[in-house]
């Protein structure tokens, strides 16, 4: 009972001391007076939470923040600690409202900048599909391929389908005389002549022209079957042996040991094909064609096949459409291929004209 009375007296005195710390201590028993003295000192007992937080702060931040800033941080911490018992909904995440948290200062502006950046990124990601779709619709792709059929060279069996030619002459004033073609052979030893200058050759050989050996022309008077000169014998106005107005030991107006207007042997005129000792021309400048507006709007796509003769100078000529596409794409293909440049095809170390095919593809991805 005495203990109860003592506890009551002590509690009353402590209550008064806490309520009015600056007032004089109340009159109490001697036993209680000593306990009240201890209680007075306990009035400023350090908060154990503060003691632990200060320790963590000292060890954690390692003095990266100036002392003045630490004071502000502690003040915020203390205020938050006092308000912890009656937390309002908008104080659950104080950093979200720029109030700052335990160990670092927070600026409201940072939240605005962060929110703006995030919104921009989300907008970019959300509209990425539209961007990519548009890009696919608007971007045409074109490719051009040089088609070369590399195969062993076989002489054509028909004159109509042969290519190449030849010519010759010995600078006579008259054109070559009319007559039959000599025998065709793979190699020429003696060019054909009408006016024979060496009656007694040391090593006689049959005059031939280079062409398909299967062709067996009639064997009477040698001459140019296309010539109009019937009676007067002449080798023609060309040079280098042979007959005609060309050069190179053949018959006709061409160059080389063949017959006709072309070059390098054979008959029928025209350019070489790749193969049989004729190398393929190699594109060194091949810009892709543009897509025609009409075809792009119609989303039209396909492939144009062009036939092109690549001259000894490496420039394309005689461009013809082999497979048409229409909608302006044929013209665009020709326009582009006309700008191409090649390393020319080579035969026996010399550049020659060859005919090649070029495939130009128009695609929409």
């Amino acid at each position, binding site marked *: 009972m005495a203990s109860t009375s003592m506890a009551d007296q002590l509690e009353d005195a402590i*209550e008064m001391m806490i309520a009015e710390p600056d007032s004089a201590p109340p009159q109490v028993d001697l036993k209680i007076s000593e306990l009240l003295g201890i209680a007075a*000192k*306990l*009035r400023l007992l350090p908060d154990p939470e503060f003691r632990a937080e200060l320790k963590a702060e000292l060890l954690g931040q390692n003095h990266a923040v100036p002392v003045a800033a630490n004071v502000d941080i502690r003040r915020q911490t203390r205020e938050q600690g006092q308000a912890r018992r009656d937390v309002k909904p908008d104080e659950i995440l104080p950093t979200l409202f720029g109030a700052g948290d335990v160990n670092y200062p927070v600026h409201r502006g940072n939240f605005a900048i962060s929110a703006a950046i995030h919104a921009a990124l989300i907008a970019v990601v959300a509209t990425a599909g539209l961007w990519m779709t548009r890009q696919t619709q608007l971007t045409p792709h074109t490719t051009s391929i040089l088609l070369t059929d590399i195969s062993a060279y076989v002489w054509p069996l028909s004159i109509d389908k042969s290519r190449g030619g030849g010519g010759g002459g010995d600078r006579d004033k008259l054109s070559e005389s009319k007559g039959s073609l000599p025998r065709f052979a793979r190699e020429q030893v003696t060019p054909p002549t009408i006016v024979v200058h060496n009656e007694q050759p040391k090593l006689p050989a049959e005059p031939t022209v280079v062409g398909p050996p299967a062709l067996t022309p009639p064997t009477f008077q040698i001459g140019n079957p296309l010539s109009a000169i019937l009676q007067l014998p002449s080798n023609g106005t060309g040079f280098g042996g042979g007959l005609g107005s060309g050069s190179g030991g053949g018959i006709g107006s061409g160059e080389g040991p063949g017959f006709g207007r072309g070059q390098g042997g054979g008959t029928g005129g025209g350019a070489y094909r790749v193969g049989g000792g004729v190398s393929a021309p190699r594109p060194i400048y091949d810009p892709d064609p543009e897509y025609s507006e009409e075809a792009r709007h119609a989303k039209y796509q396909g492939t144009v096949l062009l036939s092109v003769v690549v001259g000894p100078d490496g420039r394309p000529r005689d461009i013809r459409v082999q497979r048409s596409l229409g909608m302006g794409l044929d013209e665009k293909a020709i326009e582009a291929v006309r700008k191409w440049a090649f390393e020319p095809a080579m035969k026996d170390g010399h550049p020659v004209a060859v005919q090649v095919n070029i495939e130009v593809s128009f695609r929409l991805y």
Partner: protein
Amino acid sequence: MKALEDENLTNQKDERLQVEAARQDPARFAELYENNFERVYAYIAHRVRNREEAQDATADVFHQALASLPRFEWRGSPFVAWLLGIAANVLSDRWQRVAKRQEVVTDDLEQVGMEDDIEQRAMLYQLVETLPDDQRRVIIRRFVGQKSLREIATELGRSEGAIKQLQLRALQNLRKRIRSNHG
């Protein structure tokens, strides 16, 4: 007497090692903090009127001490003397900012028996930690939280009378331990 001198010497050596360790690695400042917190806080609490001010000033002292540790020179005095010097400067600076309190500082500094009071406070704050759990919880809620007995009783699920008895026994315990420490 010689035993007491030897003990002091050993303590000084330990403290010196702790200071050197904290200079090399600031994380080792923890030991110096634990050993000296109550003395520094008691020194400040003796001079100020409320807990918030005491805690702010104490925090300033330890922050400044940690920042100035590389410049600390050992001159034979205990480390706490250096800390109390910083505490005096901190209080002086704070009070100079608040003109009203300048007179109080002068008065307090000249108070007789100040050292005894600081020692008693420091000891008392340490002894609170040694109380039985239920008594310690009541003391902390009553004096730190400044809660009424009824509020404490509700929080701890006990009757108001029981809390009142725990408060009495806690203070009696503290008195007993202070007396036994004084010998």
